[in-house]
């Protein structure tokens, strides 16, 4: 056990030392562990008074639903939220990291965080990992300069848009946006449109499902509407219910007697030094 832990490169980042070994193992028939991907529909749009973000709540591991009600709208700052698609661990880690960095930055500067700051921190982190951190994000918030909405791709490129969709259900959601979006929507119209776009992803994309989460961000105010819509209740619950017998089946009983115990005889010779 004298071998040290895996060598970390001096400037940080990934160590690719084990890649060859992994390839060899896969060739020999090892099932590589799968990643929990969010196979998602996430959207954002800019309306009259700010930004509205939306997301579905299904997390998949291949064809299986791992989490029926996960949270994909992550907190970055009191006035900035971020939806994440791609590998769940990556979106979670990268948003938590930038959120911490911004908290320190707010203490340092004494000012409210700006969306472009979060954008720059996220994009430079993702670029430095050359796309290996598989996080596709929709970043939205309202700061001193106004409402902002951005998309960030795993390789680190960004777009600034009035409405955006990401994830496996992005085409289904974008179809809704392209048909019905217009500038200067009211809050209720915006929430309605976002809910429609996410629902389109939920019903038409197999990687998305369950409920609709919405986050409304305006100047100085945020509204996190967790499970704003729940259009997928369980369709059948048996009235009589099912029981699972607790007892285990005894297949074989074999009694092995313990070795005869050793008797201690009092009054033997004591050991002498």
């Amino acid at each position, binding site marked *: 056990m004298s071998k040290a832990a895996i060598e970390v490169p001096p400037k940080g980042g990934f160590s690719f030392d084990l890649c060859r070994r992994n390839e060899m193992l896969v060739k020999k028939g090892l099932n590589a562990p799968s990643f929990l991907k969010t196979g998602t529909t996430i959207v954002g749009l800019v309306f009259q008074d700010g930004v509205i973000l939306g997301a579905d709540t299904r997390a998949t591991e291949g*064809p*299986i639903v791992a989490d*029926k009600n996960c949270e994909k709208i992550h907190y970055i700052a009191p006035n900035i939220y971020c939806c994440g698609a791609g590998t769940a661990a990556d979106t979670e880690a990268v948003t938590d990291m930038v959120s911490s960095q911004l908290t320190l930055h707010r203490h340092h500067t004494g000012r409210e965080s700006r969306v472009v700051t979060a954008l720059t921190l996220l994009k430079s982190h993702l670029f430095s990992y050359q796309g290996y951190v598989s996080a596709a994000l929709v970043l939205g918030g309202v700061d001193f300069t106004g409402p902002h909405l951005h998309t960030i791709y795993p390789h680190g490129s960004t777009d600034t848009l009035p409405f955006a969709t990401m994830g496996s259900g992005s085409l289904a959601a974008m179809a809704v946006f392209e048909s019905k979006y217009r500038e200067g929507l009211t809050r209720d119209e915006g929430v309605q449109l976002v809910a429609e776009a996410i629902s389109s992803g939920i*019903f038409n994309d*197999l990687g*998305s499902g369950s409920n609709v989460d919405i986050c409304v961000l305006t100047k100085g105010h945020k509204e996190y509407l967790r499970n704003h819509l729940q259009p*997928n209740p369980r*369709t*059948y*619950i048996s009235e009589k219910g099912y029981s699972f017998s607790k007892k285990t089946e005894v297949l074989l009983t074999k009694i092995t007697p313990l070795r005869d115990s050793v008797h201690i005889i009092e009054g033997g010779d004591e050991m002498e030094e």
Partner: protein
Amino acid sequence: MPIQQANWSPYDNNGGTCVAIAGADYCVIAADTRMSTGYNILTRDYSKIIQLADKSVMASSGFQADVRALQKVLEARHLVYQHQHNKQMSCPAMAQLLSNTLYYKRFFPYYSFNVLGGLDSEGKGCVFTYDAVGSYERVGYSSQGSGSTLIMPFLDNQLKSPSPLLLPAKDAVTPLSESEAVDLVKTCFASATERDIYTGDKLEILVLNAEGIRREYMELRKD
């Protein structure tokens, strides 16, 4: 020039799940109606079940083009049988025919995972389960398809079929009543739909008994 690998596959998986349960005097066969490819839904209303004979019903999941081709072959062969023997094929006979038809294409298989259900000549429920190349076995219950890994353990727990290796051969059919078996099937599918993305939309249930055949539908989650 480096060696090129073929990247066109003649197969596709359209997803879906099938279940069949045999009872003392009935047989329940069920399948969902969703047909998908990749992450997309092709249709929410596609029947995977076909009645091959009076007392034989087959449900198949997998590549629906191959499933349809297989169904047509079996229907044609059954018609020929009827002309030659002046009677309908029994369920065990159909089971053997299906096995032979599948093995015939051993080296370019039908990508079809089948369960055959029906009533045997004594009127008892029978279920036969297959792999893609025709290996089959008569069982008390079975499930095939994308949700089978979720449903099978639950059926094993509730129906506890005795091993077919025991002698004298113990009856594999379940003692449950017809309505209890249908309830069990509905629960299975509602649960599989929660966790399998390829199962959902609608459930089609066929019940075969002495009186004939009955069809029932139930809504499933559409997400």
